[in-house]
């Protein structure tokens, strides 16, 4: 039995050896907002945050998480990026979108007004086959601008 801190709640779960964080979130906790697209750490769809740092949950073993706080897309439903993604049309099929938003929110936390180049650098690990990239960049800029306005 391990304890997992997810989106501010403590969960207890049985995790067999080799269980990935993505499996624990999706299968044990039913948090299916985290998507698995490649399962081997190449695409970024499964991105979650550990203590605010983006990690690939499909290649992170749940036993290595310890007492670090896990943030998934379900824990970011309040985030202005969610609406900004919709407003900018930064979601097509939407399968990569949760991972994109999780990565983008970590970026904005670390760098509240990133340049285009900085966005490209920080987001290059999140693949989108539909090609929403220009709109993702627009959505991130929009939230950065909102924050500056405040």
């Amino acid at each position, binding site marked *: 039995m391990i304890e997992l801190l997810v989106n501010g709640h403590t969960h207890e779960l049985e995790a*067999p050896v*080799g269980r990935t964080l993505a499996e624990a979130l*999706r*299968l044990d906790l*039913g*948090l*299916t*907002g*985290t*998507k*698995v*697209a*490649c*399962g*081997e750490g*190449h*695409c970024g*769809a499964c991105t979650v945050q550990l203590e605010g740092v983006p990690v690939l949950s499909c290649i992170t073993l749940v036993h290595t998480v310890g007492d670090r706080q896990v943030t*998934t*897309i*379900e824990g970011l*439903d309040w985030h202005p990026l*969610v*609406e900004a*993604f*919709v*407003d900018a*049309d*930064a*979601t*097509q*099929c*939407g*399968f*990569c*979108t*949760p991972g994109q*938003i999780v990565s983008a929110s970590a970026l904005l936390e670390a760098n509240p007004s990133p340049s285009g180049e900085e*966005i*490209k*650098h920080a*987001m*290059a*690990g*999140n*693949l*989108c*086959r*539909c*090609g*929403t*990239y*220009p*709109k*993702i*960049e627009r959505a991130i800029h929009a939230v950065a601008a909102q924050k500056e306005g405040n």
Partner: protein
Amino acid sequence: MARLIKTEKEVEGRYTEQWVVVEEDALEQWPEGPLQTVGRPATRVDGLARARGEARYTQDIRLPGMLHTAVLRSPHARARVKQIDLTPARETVGVREVIGPDDLEPLTDEPNYEGQAIAAIAADTNDQARAALDAISIEWEVLEPLLDVDQALRQESYVDDPKRYERGDVERGFAEAEAVVEAEYRTQSVLHNALETHQSVCEWEGDTLVVYTSTQFLWGVRDEVADAFGLPKDKVRVICRFMGGGFGAKGSAGDYTLIAAELARRTRRPVRCRLDRREENVNSGHRNPTIQKLRLGARADGTLTAIDAEYMCLLGWGGWLPPTAGPAQMLYACDHVRTLEYGLRLNAPPMDAFRAPGFVEGTFGLECALDELAAKLDLDPLELRRRNHTDHDPMDERPFSGKELMECYRRAEPHWERRHEVRARSEGPWKHGVGIATQLWYGGGGPPSYAWVRLSGDGTATVLTAMQDIGTGTRTAMAQIAAEELGLPIDRVTVELGDTAHGPYATVSGGSSTTPSVGPAVRAAAGDVARQIREIAAQRFDLEERLLSLSGGNVNSADGGSWPLEEITGMLGDGQILGKGARGPNPAGMRVMTYGIQVAEVAVDVETGEIVVERIYAVHDIGRVINPLGAESQIEGGIIQAIGHSLSEQRLLDPKTGKVLTQTLDAYKLPTIADVPEIVSELIDVPDAHLTNLGSKGLGEPPIVPTAAAIANAIRDATGADVRSLPITREEMLRALREAEERRRATERVEAAPA
């Protein structure tokens, strides 16, 4: 009264005749330009659900008691199973059922390509199913795969009969030519790599089979599965409410669906079968490679006199011959055209449709050759295209319905003019240039497709149609169309789609056909409701029906007076107003296509062969635009996929074993956000006056068609080198530069030689 007529239906260049029932009182098209909702930017009605991770994809479906599947796939491109023993797998912990080659149609003991399914295991967990695969005892006789193109040609190993086409007399056309170019172009195999892999969950409910699947065609899956299991069609219910990308490869049921259904039948449990990324990249289709031999002839003024083209398509073990010769046959007025297309059957995974199959490949060759011709004739490439414009399909003289290509050319002009300043940026090894390429593709859709609309007492409407939104935003477009016709704000319209049990038949989401096929049906259904509202209001308030119209959520009378819609519908209590609509016929005797042109700006480092795409301008004509915001996203997405196709993506096959070497996303290079250039796009937005009650065509595919040729032409503009092979790797770039240098030296030698 219903009238029965015959019309033509087209999907990705394949035409069939179709009987259609037409209602007499068809709706007139709306006036041109943005309306209340249609033609104005709309954010996605399902955007929040997707962005918050609340949208349930097939991958997220978990049913009580659900079993998981692992599939034993052939590790060999050609082999025979000498002996197979499934018993040890059956005895493995957690295993509920095992099926082998004798149990189900797609399972085979004589695989003809790597990844072909041999056996399948259903177990309590995914790990248990995978572990049990190792317990299957199997003995192979590995056979020599047919992979060599020359050998396949000698053996006449074709998937379909070669397709020949000829008009005029090509040799006469070349005799009339004052300039001729002849070149060979090659395009590679490209993998779809939708982020949601192919997968299904199947469950039996009594005598009904429920299939959750990631698909572009609910009804196609229904028919295929019903046929495979000998069921009446509506005893199969297919559900896909949210779909994680397809790009052409999810048009059929696939072995995974049939395997899950059979295992579910045997275990009486829900069964899930999901391809992992590696299976996906071996076993779920690809854009087939081509080798194209082109010869173009033209007069000094640029008039094309002859096109002679041969297309060898390396299809793999199956699939179909995509319309690769389409652009050569239809894009330009040319009296003498001959094409030959053939699809080689090899021991490699079968091709599947990939976003504008055939035309992407064919446009690359044709539009590159055209620019080589322009260089030879010393003509402006844009002018050359204008001079060969045709307003009718040169194959059968049918007029094109709603063709605004000349307007596209006109709007592209200032972007093409930028070439002077772009070239001037060249500095040191970095050479800059600009290239163009024209786009032609289908996209008119066709019948049958249907929709129902129901209006509740509170004045909210629900559209029901069993189509799918594969990520293109068609759910939003349908909401806009219904909202417009009902005079409602879009937030009072809900679209229910993705379930064959909830709504009538709708088309495949392929061939850019969803909006032009289902959209008119949705408008007709909403129009049916609107008519009833007007009739009810006229009776209730003693008004003249012909003076009534719906807008802003109100029923308005032309002689003054306005009533909120819910005041009329509210009268009915729980009563609902129901409307139905069908897609009408295509315009008789006309050819419906989509058009456009793209202008690429590139920079090439002539020392290293590095290529950077800096800017793409795109202008397309797809008739009326329903949602300019979603349309812009489609264009950007198509262009970005095309940049991958042009520069980085390539499925590699081991030439000896026929095995796919690029199974993972680190080996297969998809474009990232860092690879995206500035993209500027616009749409002509003039309704096609002959096409349906909307005048709209599809936009899923057009933007991917011309980009590769525009990039290659920009590279020629920058460097003088003819790149003729995709992807344009550094090796290909450096080869082309060496060839250009040798050509330049040879010319110098000739010029320096004494006369």
